[in-house]
Each structure stands twice: as structure tokens, then as C-alpha cells.
């Protein structure tokens, strides 16, 4: 049964049951990925998968239910469950379905050929990436994970108020994670890159060399003494830290008392060097969309401008409650979740310093390149973090050696305020990115 037939049958039966308005949010994707190990294909994965979330207004309330099976026999389940879910909701602010924005930005070009890449191309690219990594340095003992994948997915939102939003996207990625060993010491490092158009466009050799460089440069690591040190969060670590705290910018978190940014609109919440932008319409980045999960047309938003908090992430419900316009930040964590709030393509606007300059200007300090255990070691309510990390010790403007077995502790809100320098090395690799950030001091635990 195709999605259109299913949707028509669902809405017809729903109307008979007494639903006033109804909506489907449908995602469907396919992907192929190849993982190689020791010159052989180790895993090969093929996916064709979809799911549908239904929501509808019945007796004045909105109910939700979802399914991965698109057959007539699940329609009753969806409609009955959504009705009983609507019935027990107590929240006073109700969602409402949206008829759509007046106009939508133009969709970026979709590379229809990408998903049809023949498997041999993926296999050859993965094998070449592994060969390159193993040959690049005698200390590389294994490419623990070496994979190339392609995927495409579509999102379709249709409702009885006339909304009809559809998008299709495709992405190719290459990822390699290597193990290096020397004198009984073992370290790991990885790198990845992507293309929206073709596998061939990814510089496989460069990805392999960068992963090798990441690993071998960690050899010879040991801890440092516990103290407060100047810290540079390299772009990737800075992005990790920012990503762990993005919920503090959500109007929903603010409204529910989970965010310390409540009541801070128009105030200085960060160093004036910080401008935080969500731009779903940027071209050639992996994340982005012309409409959000409610079907609102997206646009570029400045969340923080020169250190001043300009807006939270709003969907239509939070916007209505706050008396503002939606910033088109309606999201679904997964197709089967309820409408929440999230960003599309969030980044810290780059500054002018290169990472090398930031290192050169550091007399004694630490550059952090990897944070670990973020799901547990960060607290979004307090902003506090205490995280295991890896990095490099800097002395007199030079990287001296690698550092391990340390933690970095601080508070995200203080970090925002204390950024002294913003790098120019922004690299879009996911939906939340940052250039390197330098701070005057953070607490490091070691020996």
C-alpha cells in the first residue's frame, strides 16, 4: 500500500470516527553502507524503511500515534490510540494543525543519482581509504572502523487543513577510525567527510590521512597536574560541547523551567565575540530544510548576536504562548515523537584567528580535541560539566605533547561568557558546529 492510499484511507475512517482535523508526518529512507576490515568487506547493510506519525484533533484535543506498518489493519490502532491519548492530556496549550506558510524557500537541488551509486564504488572507496590509512604510518595497526555509505530520505507532511510539504535529501559519507600503537601504548583517532552529490566527490585519501594524523599525534600522551589552565576547544570539541547544551535555547525548556536562560532575552548571555546562528537554508551542508516539522517555512535566525540573547527556538505552540512568531523550530526527534523544538543547522559564527594563531598566542595551556561521556557528564539544568577529554599540552605557543587521563570541568553558561577568541575554522559536519574557541581558564583534573 503506498503512502497516498494509506493517508486517504486513514483520513476517511478518521473523519467517520469524529476527528475534526488530521495530519500525517511520514518519513521514508533507503541506504547502503559498506564497512571493510583488513582488505575485506566486513559488513554490508541495506535499508529500506519508513514510518508514519498520525496526529488528529478529536473532542477538541490533539492525540498522537505512530506506525511503521502501512496496511489497512493498523488504521484502527492509530485512530483508537490517538483518541485515548488525546483524552488523557491535561496540558492547556494545545497543538493545532497548520494550513501552511504563504510561501516556501526553494528546495536545494536533490542529487537523484546518489542513491543509485553502484555498490562497487562504495566498496572500492572504503578499501582505498583503509589501504591509505594503513600505509600512511607504520604505527597504524588497524582501521577499526572504515565505512562508506549513501542514504536518501524523504519527509512528507499532509493535513486536512491543506498543508502539503515534501522534501527529499541525499547524503554520502565516509568515516574511518584507526588504532595506532607504539611501545605498548594504544591510541585511536577518526575522521569523516560527506558529499551531498556523489561518493567520488569525497576526498577519501584526505579523510584517511586526517584520521591517521589524529591517532598518531595522541601517542606519547600522559596526564597533567590538576590546575586551572587556559583552554582551546578545537572546533570539533567546541561543537560537541555546544551540541550537549542546545536544549537551553529551546522555548519549551525555558517555559518548563529547565533552562537557565529563562527571562534572559535581550540580555548579554555570552561574550560579545559570540554570534550563534541557525540557518536551515544554507547550501551544501548536511543539515537543513525549507520547512519544519509543523510545516512552517524556515528562515535564518540569530539566536545570540554579539553576545546578546535574541530569541529562543520556537515552534507554533511555544510562540503562541510567548506572544511571538514561530521561528520555525518545530521538530520531531524521531518520526514517532511528538512535536518538540530543535535547531536545523546551528553554528557559532567564525572569527578571524586561525587555530595555529590561537595556539601561538598560548603560553601554557591545553587544546582539547575530544570530549567523552557527554550524555552523562553534562547537566543542562545547571550548565555544569565534568568530562573526560583528550588533547595537547601547549607551551610557548607550540604543541608539546598529547595529554590523556584528564577531565575538564566548568559551566556552559560561564564558557559562553568567557570566550576570548573565536577561530575561523568552522567546518559543517553535522547539524551543530562551531569554530575553535579559546578561554582564559578552566579546571583540569589530572594527577
Amino acid at each position: 500500500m503506498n503512502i497516498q492510499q494509506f493517508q486517504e484511507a486513514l483520513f476517511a475512517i478518521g473523519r467517520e470516527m469524529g476527528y475534526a482535523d488530521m495530519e500525517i508526518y511520514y518519513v521514508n529512507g533507503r541506504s547502503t553502507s559498506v564497512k571493510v576490515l583488513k582488505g575485506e568487506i566486513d559488513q554490508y547493510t541495506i535499508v529500506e524503511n519508513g514510518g508514519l506519525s498520525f496526529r488528529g484533533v478529536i473532542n477538541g484535543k490533539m492525540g498522537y500515534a505512530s506506525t511503521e506498518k502501512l496496511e489497512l489493519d493498523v488504521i484502527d490502532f492509530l485512530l483508537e490510540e490517538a483518541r485515548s491519548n488525546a483524552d488523557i492530556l491535561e496540558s492547556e496549550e494545545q497543538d493545532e494543525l497548520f494550513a501552511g506558510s504563504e510561501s516556501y524557500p526553494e528546495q536545494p537541488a536533490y542529487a537523484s543519482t546518489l542513491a543509485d551509486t553502484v555498490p562497487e564504488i562504495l566498496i572500492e572507496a572504503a578499501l582505498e581509504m583503509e589501504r591509505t590509512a594503513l600505509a600512511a604510518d607504520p604505527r597504524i595497526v588497524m582501521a577499526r572502523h572504515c565505512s562508506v555509505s549513501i542514504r536518501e530520505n524523504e519527509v512528507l507532511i499532509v493535513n486536512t487543513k491543506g498543508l502539503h510539504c515534501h522534501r527529499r535529501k541525499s547524503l554520502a559519507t565516509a568515516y574511518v577510525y584507526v588504532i595506532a600503537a607504539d611501545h605498548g601504548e594504544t591510541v585511536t583517532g577518526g575522521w569523516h567527510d560527506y558529499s551531498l552529490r556523489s561518493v567520488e566527490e569525497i576526498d577519501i585519501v584526505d579523510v584517511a590521512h586526517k584520521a591517521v594524523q589524529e591517532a598518531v599525534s595522541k601517542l606519547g600522551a600522559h596526564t597533567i597536574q590538576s590546575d586551572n589552565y587556559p583552554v582551546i576547544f578545537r572546533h570539533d570539541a567546541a561543537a560537541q560541547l555546544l551540541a550537549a547544551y542546545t536544549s537551553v535555547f529551546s522555548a519549551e525548556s525555558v517555559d518548563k523551567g529547565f533552562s537557565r536562560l529563562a527571562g534572559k532575552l535581550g540580555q548579554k548571555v555570552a561574550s560579545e565575540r559570540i554570534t550563534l546562528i541557525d540557518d536551515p537554508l544554507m547550501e551544501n551542508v548536511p543539515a537543513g530544510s525549507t520547512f519544519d516539522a509543523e510545516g512552517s517555512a524556515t528562515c535564518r535566525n540569530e539566536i545570540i548576536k554579539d553576545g546578546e540573547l535574541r530569541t529562543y527556538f520556537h515552534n507554533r505552540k511555544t510562540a503562541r504562548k510567548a506572544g511571538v512568531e514561530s521561528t520555525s523550530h518545530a521538530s520531531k526527534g524521531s518520526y514517532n515523537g511528538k512535536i518538540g523544538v530543535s535547531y536545523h543547522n546551528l553554528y557559532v559564527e567564525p572569527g578571524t584567528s586561525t587555530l595555529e594563531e590561537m595556539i601561538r598566542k598560548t603560553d601554557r595551556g591545553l587544546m582539547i580535541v575530544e570530549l567523552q561521556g557527554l550524555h552523562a557528564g553534562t547537566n543542562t539544568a545547571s550548565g555544569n560539566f565534568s568530562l573526560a577529554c583528550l588533547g595537547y599540552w601547549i607551551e610557548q605557543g607550540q604543541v608539546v605533547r598529547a595529554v590523556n587521563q584528564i577531565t575538564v570541568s566548568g559551566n556552559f553558561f560561564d564558557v559562553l561568557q568567557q570566550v576570548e577568541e573565536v577561530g575561523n575554522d568552522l567546518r559543517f559536519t553535522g547539524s551543530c558546529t562551531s569554530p575553535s574557541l579559546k578561554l582564559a581558564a578552566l579546571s583540569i583534573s589530572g594527577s
Partner: protein
Amino acid sequence: MIHPTQIQDMLQAALETGGDFAEVFVEDRTNGQLGMTGGVVDTALSGRDFGIGIRIMKEHFSVYAYTSDMSEQSLIRLAKSAAKAIRGGGAPGTHAITLHPHTIPNQHPIAIIPDGSQKRAKIDMMRRAHEAASQYDPSITQTSVGISNSIQNVLIANSNGLLVEDTRTYTRMRISAIATHGEHRQSGFRGPGAYAGTEFLENLNIEENARHAARIATTMVKAGYAPSGRLPVVIENGFGGVLFHEACGHGLESTAVAHGTSVFANKIGQQVASPLVTAIDDGTIQNAWGSLNIDDEGAPTQRNVLIENGILKGYLIDRMGSRQMGVPATGSGRRQSYKFAPASRMNNTFIANGDSTREEIIANTEYGIYAKSLGGGSVNTSTSEFNFAVEEAYMIRNGKIAEPVKGATLIGKGIETLQNIDMVSNNLDHGQGMCGSVSGSLPVNCGQPTIRVSEMTVGGRKGE
């Protein structure tokens, strides 16, 4: 769920290109999720996950494919396209596959099967949690409570003739409390769960769990920061077992061991931990959060002794790990859903009881950290560097528990930390968590008695 002849056809199609083993995993799962923020019900979701995964092996190589399109022609197409990825040819499929359905005894009785009719009763339970947490202390400014349940029906069949079905029923309650003190906010969490039906909630001391979450938030919001550096650490029983889970458990999975990349590889029979440490992974504990009748490859789960008196005894091995390592599987093949190929994973992992008492351990510690409630953690199995977060911690001074401290993340390296365990008490208990790895996010128990590690790096803050 799906007709056996259809499965037979799929398996046969899967072996057409020379694969030597094929396996089908069919899943039909119903999920329910209720949520309450500040005492107001704001989330009510129901879902039906439905799909099929097929795996083909040829020696040490495997192909995995999955779909939620269950039409007959789509399933055969999926099997054939997966089979195309089997390289090196071999004899085309001459396998005549005959499936032998067998039933497995259910070790985990479910008294009240979760269904939609229980929603109102569950909301009353959530409200009790909200009230107990919010009344605990005036500093509690917000609560978030949720109940989730799922019923996962699986059918597993393979080209060896196995055909087996099972139903897994999970129920979990999550309670978060937020305390505010001036500009400071802190959250506390409690998440008891079981492989059980709604009777688990009826028998649960909801108020006690809610007060526990509220206590963490209230205590920590006023606490100063933990000190930095190398210190003795006493880790409380129950979910404190996440220490072993991260420091050692992941490193014993064949996913890490088979290629020799784990620090625990090739160390069977060697002393890898203090002689006080005996560690077990047991998938058979009745109704425990991480238990299963059969693993996700259709093999019965078992009790696996991993470390006995400090000596490494065994690993956790799935079917592919068994091929790669040339040893029998241990009933440890698990996956979140049909969207993942199985991998070797933990079930209920714990350190066995020792001879000390909790009181002795604290009284014997002059200065250190008492880690009362732990959060989650992670590990790099190639280097064995792990970390985990302490949600609720106190200083120990002169053999007594002293002031609370926050921000005490603990880090270390696997074998080194296990060898530094110098006291083990006799109060084994288990806590529940979700473990994320290559085959998805899975329910696991982490358990231990109260233990002491003579020295660990504590990630506090200097000078505060």
C-alpha cells in the same frame, strides 16, 4: 506474524549466492509512553514498530538488510539484494531448509500485560511521583515524570532450521526533579525498570524513588565542587555497577575482543582484576531489566562468569564472534530492533558480593569520595579509557561521610582500575540503565555491592 513458508523462501533466496548461514528477525512491537511535567500530563504516545531484518553470513563476512515493507515480493527482493553482496561466489544455494518450530519455556512471568486501558492508573502513579518529589523540599521547582512500556514480539529463524518466537515486556518509570538555589539549578534522576508488566509499577515504592531523585537535586544544588586529582573512591551498591560495565564489560564483548583490539583480548586465565573481584553477566535473572529467554539470535541466555577472583574466565560472544574466535557463543547476541544486526552485548552485569560491610569500607577510608548515585558513562575499548558521571557524591573524612560535592566525574583505564578495587562489601544490588553501542540502545542491569577503588582520577574543580 509471518508465515513459515515465506521465511523459508527468504532464507533460501538469501543463500543463493553462496552464503553459508542466513537468519531472519521479525519484530512487531507496541510502545506506550506517558509524560508529565510539573504535574500536568503533556505526553501520551503510542506506536507500533514493525519490520524484518535478514542477515547472511559467509565465513567472517556478513550482510544485513532490513525493511518495514512486509509484502511477500518485497521480502524476497530484500533477501536477493542482500545475497548479491555476498562476494566470492561459492556453490549456489542447494540448501533445502526445513524449519523446526520450537517453543522455549518462559522464565519471566508477566502478571499484568500493559495495554491502553491502564493509562489513567499510570497517570495516578505519575502524579504520586510528582507530589512526593515536589513536596520533598521547597527548593524543588520542577518535576518531570514518565512511564514507558513496550511489548516486543520477535520471531527468529535461521538456515540451521531454528524457528522460535518470544515476547518481551518492559516497564519503566522515570522521575526527574529540579532544585533551584539562587542562580543554580540541579537535577536528580531515578529510573527503575523491569522485564515485567504493569505489576512492576504497582509493587514499586514510587514515593521513595521520587524522594531519591529530589534528594539528589536538593543536595547537589547547594553542594560545592568535588576536589580534583587522584583519590580513593567508595562506590555505592546498585547502579554503581556501571563502573564495571564501562571499565570492563564492553571490553569483554567479542565485538571488541575478536580482532584483538580490546585490552582484555588474549588474557583468559590471567589476573586482570583484584582477587576480590568476581564478575558475572547473567541474562537469566527472573524479570530483571536486562534478562531475556533467548537472545536476539534465538539462543537461550545464560549465566556467564567473566572474572573469578580476579582471573579472566570468559567473554561475551555472539554468533559472529563465535565464528571469528572459534569458541561457542554465550547467548549474548542482542539488538535494539530489527534495524540493527545483532552484536555481543551485556545483559545483567554485576560484581559478586565480598566479605566487607559497607560501614567497614567507609570507616576504613580516611579521605576520599563517596559516590552514592551514579549517572552513565562511556569507554573506548581499544584504549580501555572510560569515564562515568557521579550524580550524587560526598566527601569522606576520617572514616565518615561528610559534605556533599558535585561535579565528580570519575575516569580511569580498565585493568588498572579493576586491580585497584581493594574492598568489596556484601550488599549486592542492581540498577537499571540503557546501554548504547553498535547494535543500538538496550536495557541492561548494572549491579554491585559497595566497593572501594584505592585510587581514581576525580574530575572535580580545583580551588573551589
